[in-house]
Each structure stands twice: as structure tokens, then as C-alpha cells.
């Protein structure tokens, strides 16, 4: 078919008209976020930390459920395992918390390998339940780890976070107290993690692997027939999500400084809320979790003082959105406006060759 490659002038791009503008806006926003600790109050930094870490978890879950069709209700396994590994690194091995966060991510990655082996034998709903059981097993096993407090839990050695790499420097540079400097360093780490996570997911989706992933999600059998290996594609995504989730878990618990199995493997905190964030914002888009986490944060601040009403309303909103706007708030918005901050569509442009050249293959009518 070599003669086909010659004359035509095709271009393939994923950019939309607005995408260059939105890329710039996003870069500006990231720069602004980086500088935020200089001019906002500590409580805002704190809230931003919460938003960013939840965003990372939501992006990871969305990557699994929205892009790979892997509905996991066991992501708390990786949050908790990453966090426990971080604690072990700091408390038992005397590592710097910063290094221990990386250890947390790696530990979650390591956990995901045997886990994947098991859960990928299961399909659909079985997969969901399988991930949940695995998370329970990990929780119950870590509850037996006496050196880290067993079921009681444990706290980071006092001062560990204050001696973390960079904290002293930030404290001196900005003239703030130790705990505040720790918060700022953690915030920057969260920002970095969020940006890298979103960037990597975006890059993945625009890569060949991302295309294969979409194909597998849409039609597994057909994907196999055009050369895509569904198991490998899904496993890859599963491992990546576990790694990022583990990093986020470790980071969250550096900030909390206290861990217990029930907290670190909490289904509501690390999976339920995350699912709500993705569903409210819009599953299967990068923008969705971003919108979702903001809405979730606002809801939480408005309603948190109403105790169980808060969760009740959150549940109702989740149900209503799933029933009436299954593509979430971002979906509603994008359907109206066609807006896309992170376009992944490959748009084909260019001219087909003049009819004379295609004569040989089309024949005359």
C-alpha cells in the first residue's frame, strides 16, 4: 500500500481552538497555586491541601473506572498501604518523611502486583467486590502489625515532620512557625503530585496506550482483534493508579501524623467520597474530578455542621446526578458549550487526494 503514503497531506492533532488558551490558563493557575502560601492564610493552604490530595485520588479512580472500566471499591487499600509504609519508613527505619512518601508510593505499587493478579481474574461486579475484599484483607493484616500499633494505631514521632527536608528552609525563608512550614511543604508536594498526576494521565490518554485503553473499554473483543492486549493495558493503568494513590495516601498521613487501620483504610473517606467527586464532576474526563472536588469541598463546608444531613444530601445528590446527568456537571457544561480543557480527540484534517489518483481502487460506477 506504499503508494498511498505519497501524495496526501494529512494532519492529525488533538488541539481544539480553545485548547492553547486553556493550556496557558492552566499554567498560570498552577503558578498562582504555587505562590499561594505567600499571600493566603494558613487555613486556605490547608483547604487547598485537602482539595489537591482528594483530586489526586479522584483522578486515579477516574482513570480506573472512567477510562479503563475497572470499577474498584478498594482503592483505600493503596491509600492505607502507602500511608503505613510511610509510617514504617519514618518510625521504624528513621527515614525522612519526604523519602518515606516515595516509599509509600512504591509500597502501594508493590502491593498492586499480586492484587492485580487476583482481581483481573474477575469481571465487572465481581471485580468491584474483589477489590473491596482485598482492601479488607490488607486492613486486617496491617491491624496485626504490632510495631505500628496494631488496631490501636500510632502517631509519627513528634518532630519528625518538623525536621522534614525543606521545612526548616521554608520556615526561615517565609518567617513562619514550624508547623506552618510543614503545612506549606506538604501543600507544595500535594500540588506537585496533583500536577504530575493530571499531566501523566493526560499524556497517557494522548498516547498510543491511551487509545488502546479507550478501545478496550469500548469493546474488549474487538480490541483484541486489532492487536490490543486488554490485560496488559488494564494492568498498566491499575499499577499506575496504585502508585499515585499510594503517594497521595502517604502524603495525606504525613500531614495527619496519626494513623490507625480504621482511618487509613476507611471506605467512606478514601473511596466513597472519591467516587462522589468523580460522579458529581463527570466520569471519564479529566475535567470532571476537578469540578467534582471543588463542588464537594463547597458542599462539605456548607453542610459539615449538619452532621448526618450532610452525608444524606451528598448521597441524594450522587443518586440524582447518576440518574439524570450521568456524565456529571462537567458533562452538562461541555455538552452545552463544547468546551474541553484537556482534549484527547485525534482530529483528522487535510485533503484527500484528487479522484484521479484513487481511480485504481474505487473503480468506475
Amino acid at each position, binding site marked *: *500500500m506504499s503508494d*498511498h*503514503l505519497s501524495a*496526501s497531506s*494529512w494532519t*492529525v492533532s488533538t488541539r481544539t481552538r480553545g485548547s492553547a488558551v486553556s493550556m496557558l490558563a492552566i499554567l498560570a493557575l498552577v503558578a498562582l497555586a504555587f505562590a499561594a502560601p505567600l499571600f493566603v492564610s494558613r487555613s486556605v493552604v490547608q483547604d487547598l491541601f485537602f482539595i489537591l490530595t482528594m483530586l489526586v485520588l479522584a483522578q486515579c479512580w477516574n482513570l480506573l473506572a472512567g477510562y479503563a472500566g475497572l470499577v474498584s471499591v478498594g482503592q483505600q487499600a493503596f491509600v492505607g498501604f502507602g500511608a503505613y509504609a510511610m509510617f514504617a519508613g519514618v518510625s521504624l527505619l528513621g527515614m525522612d518523611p519526604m523519602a518515606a512518601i516515595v516509599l509509600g508510593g512504591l509500597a502501594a505499587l508493590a502491593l498492586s502486583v499480586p492484587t492485580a493478579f487476583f482481581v483481573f481474574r474477575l469481571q465487572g461486579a465481581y471485580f468491584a467486590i474483589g477489590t473491596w475484599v482485598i482492601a479488607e484483607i490488607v486492613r486486617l493484616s496491617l491491624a496485626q502489625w504490632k510495631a505500628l500499633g496494631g488496631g490501636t494505631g500510632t502517631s509519627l514521632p513528634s518532630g519528625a515532620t518538623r525536621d522534614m527536608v525543606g521545612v526548616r528552609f521554608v520556615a526561615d525563608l517565609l518567617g513562619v512557625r514550624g508547623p506552618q512550614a510543614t503545612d506549606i511543604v506538604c501543600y507544595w508536594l500535594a500540588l506537585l503530585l496533583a500536577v504530575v498526576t493530571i499531566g501523566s494521565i493526560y499524556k497517557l490518554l494522548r498516547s*498510543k496506550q491511551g*487509545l*488502546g485503553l*479507550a*478501545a478496550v*473499554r*469500548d*469493546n474488549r*473483543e*474487538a*480490541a*483484541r*482483534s*486489532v*492487536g*490490543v*492486549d486488554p490485560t496488559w493495558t488494564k494492568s498498566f493503568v491499575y499499577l499506575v493508579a496504585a502508585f499515585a494513590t499510594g503517594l497521595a495516601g502517604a502524603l495525606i498521613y504525613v500531614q495527619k501524623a496519626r494513623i490507625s487501620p480504621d482511618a487509613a483504610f476507611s471506605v467512606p473517606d478514601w473511596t466513597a467520597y472519591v467516587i462522589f467527586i468523580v460522579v458529581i464532576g463527570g466520569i471519564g474526563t479529566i475535567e470532571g474530578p476537578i469540578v467534582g472536588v471543588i463542588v464537594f469541598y463547597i458542599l462539605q463546608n456548607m453542610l459539615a455542621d449538619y452532621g448526618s444531613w450532610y452525608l444524606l444530601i451528598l448521597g441524594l445528590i450522587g443518586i440524582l446526578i447518576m440518574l439524570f446527568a450521568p456524565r456529571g456537571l462537567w458533562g452538562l457544561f461541555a455538552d452545552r458549550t463544547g468546551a474541553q480543557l484537556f482534549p484527547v*480527540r*485525534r*482530529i*483528522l484534517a*487535510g485533503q*484527500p*487526494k484528487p479522484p484521479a489518483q*484513487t481511480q*485504481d*481502487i*474505487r*473503480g468506475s*460506477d
Partner: protein
Amino acid sequence: MPILALDQVSKSFGALKVADTISFALEKGEALGVIGPNGAGKSTLFNLITGNIRVDAGTIRFDGEDVTRQPPMARCLAGVGRTFQIPQPFEKLTVFENLLVAGAFGSRKTEKEVGDRCADILVETGLYPKANQPAGSLGLLQRKRLELARALATDPKILLLDEIAGGLTEGECQELVETIRAIHRRGVSIIWVEHVLHALNSVVSRLVVLHFGRVIGDGDPETIMASRDVREIYLGIDV
């Protein structure tokens, strides 16, 4: 050496035997038609050749290599391209992306390398105007074209076509026949399952007849069409 050779291939679904010791070989560059009543096992035969379904017994050799135990991905890479009888597009991807997936994965190349070829195939199969639309929005005819286009994008050595002419108007059918002839002329071997006999017979040089999973006829179209079995079982013409 034949490009594809089936030897005593069998497959059952429970008590139902859908492939019963099927053996035949296809020479490089040959175009073979497969006919038979509904449920005879034609689509299943394709699924066995592509690996979407595992054989119970027998061997399948492709291009000299035993592929009986290989998964569909490997066979695709080796050069087996197929269409599905019921079109199976990647619905949320655009038509062009459907081809990109097939191009990039089916021939182990980068997206960049296969982009132009995919675009040319779109033109060739008449899908170019729909290139940037989601495949889920296509009608049945275009879905069938997409099946063909996607199979072509994997750069196959052999192309398995499952009833892609059904439901086409006379003119469309003619166009399709021309396209398939052109593909064939480039040296791609073809196996075509089709009920639209005049279209089939204007392309293939040999017919295999399947009935209850068995090969009950194999030869040149004229003799096959005239044979008693085919007239009785398949054409339903009183003899």
C-alpha cells in the same frame, strides 16, 4: 506454502457442534468464499481462525506457523485482519481513531507512522466525511464499512470478511465489490462469508460450503452452486 491451513479443527458449545473436523488450506493471494445456512458455523469458523474463540481440537497454521494457542492480538500482529458480522466499533472513539487503534496496535507502529495510511483507508472505504465523528453515531451500513476499514488498518496479510455486503443497495454493493477486488489485487488473501451470492461470486475463485459445522463442499463456484447439496440445503430450491 499456504498462508492459512486448518487441520481437523473442532469446536462445540455444550452439545452443539459448531465446527466439526474442518480442514482446508488457503494459498497466498487466494480469495475464498464461505457459504452455508444460518447457524452453520461460519462466524464461529472466523472466531476460531482469529483466536477470539479457542479450538477444542485441531491445529491452525498461519504463514507456516502454528498459531492454534496464540491469542487474537498475536494473530492480528502476524497479519490476520477481520470484520465482525455484527459490527463492533469502538463507539466512543471517532471513526478515525478507530482506525488509528487498529493501525498502531495491529502493526506495531506509532500513531504518527500510521496516521496517513489510516486517512487514506478512510477515503478508500468512503468513510472520510465521517472521520471525526464518534463511531457510535454511525448507521449500520457505515458501521460495516468501518469494520472493513479497521481491518485494513491493521495491514493484514489475510482478510476475513463476515457478511459485509448484507443490506447494501445494488450500487453500494457494486462499489464494495470493487474495493474488495482492489484489496485482493494488492496481494491480500481473502476469506469472505456472504449470503449475497452475486457479490461474493464476482470476487472469489473458490467456495467452501459449511453445514452443521462440517465442510460439505469445496471447489470452484460454478460446480458448488450447481451441486445438489447446495441447491437443497442452502438455496432452498426444490430439486
